[in-house]
């Protein structure tokens, strides 16, 4: 079955949302789902990519950038988000940092039968920290990314976007 483009989440769409919301820095750790997006981001002269080697570093880097007046986004996988609990707590929640984190939802089955514990605990983790989150599965959901940016600024808290689909190739 051929999926329509609207049924995919295209990297161009995500990049457009970043630009629309004035993102200056992408603090990220690559995973298999974000390579298409990486290829776009690295060719964008307005974006500064900061690659970390463990996801917890992303939250303290984002805090420093934000205190310094920049507008970072964190791009990580759910596995790394769970590893980052204390850093998220102390450096972003505790310092009232308005930051959006886009989280690859590894194992997501649209709340169907789940065989990956990374997916099992993702939303439970966010709920435990009281972090609002929005699910983005395809291009038609992309405007939720802007909602997350607005909410982060209003609440001075991190807001998560759960990416429930792998990014597809360029179109």
């Amino acid at each position, binding site marked *: 079955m051929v999926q329509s483009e609207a049924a995919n989440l295209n990297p161009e769409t995500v990049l457009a949302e970043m630009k629309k919301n004035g993102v200056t820095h992408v603090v990220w750790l690559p995973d298999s789902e974000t390579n298409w997006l990486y290829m776009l981001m690295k060719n964008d002269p307005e974006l500064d990519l900061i690659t*970390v080697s463990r996801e917890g570093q992303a939250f*303290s880097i984002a805090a*420093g*950038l934000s205190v310094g007046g920049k507008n970072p986004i964190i791009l990580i996988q759910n596995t790394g988000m769970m590893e980052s609990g204390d850093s998220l707590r102390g450096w972003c929640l505790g310092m009232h940092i308005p930051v959006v984190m886009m989280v690859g939802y590894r194992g997501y089955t649209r709340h169907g039968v789940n065989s990956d514990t990374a997916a099992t605990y993702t939303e439970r983790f966010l709920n435990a920290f009281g972090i609002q989150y929005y699910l983005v599965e395809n291009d038609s959901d992309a405007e939720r990314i802007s909602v997350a940016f607005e909410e982060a600024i209003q609440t001075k808290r991190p807001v998560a976007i759960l990416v429930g689909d792998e990014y597809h190739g360029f179109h």
Partner: protein
Amino acid sequence: MFQTADMLNIFQKYRGDAIVIPGRGGRHWIDISTNEKRDIPLGDPAMGGHASFGMGLALAQPDEKVILFDSEGDVLMNLGALVTIAEKAPENFYHFMLDNECYATTGGQPVPNAQNVAYDVIAKGAGYSKTYAFDNLEEFTNNIEDILAQPGPVFVAMKVFPHIENEPIGSRRRWQTRTRDKVIEDVQEQMGV
């Protein structure tokens, strides 16, 4: 080894108008600093994150000199952060590290391999272009001006005496005089953010 407060008193002479993140030296620095609004004493938001925070701030404010007093316990928690700092290479970032060879605030238990770690070598291997190690105050004093005059990122490991605390956390003197929100508000005003 030398006393952290003695080192900070010497550093203060060369601080200029740099932004200072006092980290684990905060309890001493608060009595030494003459430019409180350009200090960012955060206490301990989450251990291991100060270096990354400092780098983020330095990247965001390239015209400000950003000086961090990290600790070996923090650095050990996030050794990978050194690689990212070296890659981004903010020329305005000066990464000092207090090495007291222990977890002083939890009673003084030694950090892993406490007496045998060459942190300056680790930083050099991570890609910092300039690294130093000092275990006596005279050498530190003789070099601090030159260290701060060169472009960063610079890493400076220092052997300091521990100030071991055994009192229950709730009974300890709180040295911070401003809330974190106020600290951030003050420094942002200073930086024009």
